[in-house]
């Protein structure tokens, strides 16, 4: 029997699961190797679990979703989070530093109709996650790589070093050294192909922290470029802002700033 794959969505933009459909060259081959037992965006028939692999997109932001992810885990052998929302809480985790009640009032005339949690949290804060695929969006080649590993019963492995390594290999001119532009590349995980520097701009951290991110040195680098205080905080508190090394660094800078004010 073909391995049964499920794709679940929580709070997200659909861009990561779209990468399955964006694998135009591989999609029909993939479909001959696995059964998409549950994939609402692509298939109207939904088959019940258990599933061999579940790909989970999106973060947990509602009481219902906090219950649903536990059911997903119970029906799944191998759970892979896809993307910044599922792996780090996503851009919507900016609420974690604010008052969600106030957020509701900003967007909705009748905030009382809206049921939402005060935080947006990654899947790993709710259930055991077997593998995390980073990126906003995830890279489709990395996605295919992970599927291929799992189909051959190998543990997926992806590099965790910084974007800088990839950037050098690509032959980009360093935007920090040559142009003095802010760039999160030194503390960001590789995976995008060092895209932003290749488009003449600094990295903004789509793939989250690199395994060995040296936040102390990076904070000094930002300071040497004149990026301090809330400006530095804002750069770290973005798409992957809620993930630990960036969160802790940004929180420490913010605390310092408040004491100085």
């Amino acid at each position, binding site marked *: 029997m073909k391995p049964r794959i499920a794709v679940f*969505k*929580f*709070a*997200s*933009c*659909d*861009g*990561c*699961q*779209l*990468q399955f*459909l*964006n694998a*135009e060259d591989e*999609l*029909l081959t993939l*479909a001959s190797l696995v059964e*998409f037992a549950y*994939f*609402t*965006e*692509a*298939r*109207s*028939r*939904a088959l019940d679990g258990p599933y061999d692999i579940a790909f989970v997109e999106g973060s947990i*932001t*509602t009481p219902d*979703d906090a219950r649903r992810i536990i059911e997903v885990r119970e029906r799944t052998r191998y759970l892979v989070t896809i993307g910044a929302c599922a792996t780090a809480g*996503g*851009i*919507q985790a900016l*609420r974690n530093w*604010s008052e969600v009640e*106030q*957020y*509701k009032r*900003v*967007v*909705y*005339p*009748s905030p009382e*109709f*809206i049921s*939402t949690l005060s935080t947006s949290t990654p899947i790993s804060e709710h259930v055991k996650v077997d593998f995390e695929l980073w990126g*906003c*969006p995830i890279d489709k080649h990395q996605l295919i790589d992970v599927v291929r590993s799992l189909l051959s019963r190998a543990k997926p492995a992806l590099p965790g070093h910084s974007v800088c390594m990839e950037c050098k290999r690509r032959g980009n001119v360093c935007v920090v050294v040559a142009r003095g532009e802010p760039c999160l590349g030194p503390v960001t995980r590789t995976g*995008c*192909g060092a*895209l*932003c520097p*290749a*488009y*003449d*701009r600094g990295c*903004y951290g*789509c793939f989250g922290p690199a395994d060995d991110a040296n936040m102390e040195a990076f904070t000094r680098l930002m300071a040497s470029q004149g990026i301090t205080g809330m400006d530095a905080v*804002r750069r770290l508190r*973005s*798409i992957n802002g809620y993930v630990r090394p960036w969160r802790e660094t940004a929180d420490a800078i913010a605390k310092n700033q408040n004491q100085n004010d």
Partner: protein
Amino acid sequence: MPSRRTKTRTINVSNLARVEGEGALHIRLRGGEISELKLEIFEPPRFFEAFLRGRDSREAPDLNARICGICPVAYQMSTVHAFERLYGITIDPAVRALRRLYYCGEWIESHALHIHMLSAPDFMGCDSVITLAEKDRAAVERGLRIKQLGNAIVAKLGGRSVHPVGACIGGFTRVPRREELAELREALMRERDDALECVRWVARFDLPAVERDIEFVSLRHPDEYPMNEGRIVSSRGIDAAQDEFDAWFEESQVPYSNALHSKIKARGAYFVGPLARINLNFDRLGTEVQSAARQTQIAWPSSNPYTSIVARALEVLYAIEEALRIIDTYEPPSAPAAKFELRAGTGCAITEAPRGALYHAYETDERGVIRSARIVPPTSQNQARIEADLRELIPQLIERSHVEATRACEMAIRNYDPCISCSTHFLRLEIER
């Protein structure tokens, strides 16, 4: 299974499939009359308009892209145009042409996805593109090629197709050389034939023949098919500047949905998207696309929402022709982006997302920090119109099984290619009868 003899019947579609995002449909019938109909959007809110407050306006194109993985270019385009109005920036004509090319890429990619993967399976009696490929592999492969071309255009300008990185206020961070764009030419020529074949393919589908009383709304430009610029026009006489949006349209909230409903003041529901654009801008399509449109045997303008799939295929053909034109006449701009000064002010813009008009409005302080943001996505605007279509459809479904009723409702909803992630929210059909 509720029996036909009971006075009330409920139909619940608890998870609308093959739409982007999460929603449900709840219908209650009493004695054959609809007593309640709710298109519920339960996709959790992500509060973009709230967390944008306090962010630097220059971050907005990257942040807003994250509203939607299928149409990030649309979010970037409405964002940059709104801020360019706010900061008083004039755009180089070459940059303007590149932005049009960028949008062509997204229309092609998003429409090819909807036609082949989300909508066509309905007309071919399949549950997904994968089973559709078993029936008509050539059509699916053709669709994948078209989609791949759209993605390649976006990636050419922005590095990748989902959340591309190059667009910024004032232009792009980097613009391509002539020869880089010329690399797209061969694929464009090939896919022009595919797109024409795709128009013929969808025009042969057994589209339900209905006529609905619809007000269509789109942008209209003095001499182009609308994308990034134009006045707001409607099939019932609206002709307004973009900054008059609030004078004509209003948003309201309903308890069952996390998306706001948008209506024309005093008149109510309206329709945005490819069918609205074709109906209101047929004369701007160019002779090739017009001739392909006439060959479909559909009378344009069309007030049948099921012809949306044909409108989408025609726009794919248009976007390919337009992309070819832009590539062939391209001369790189003197600078990738215009310089500008941050300042306090307000600015709004509407651009034509694949699913229809997308309105953004912002206010900044003197440092260019966002003080307020408003975003009205196409699906919010179509929501009332979708409910109106369902009200007309449902009385004909009363005798049908739950499976058939669900399928018919979902097809009616898919005409709008709803992007629930954008409007915050897909379909669970609940019919109480």
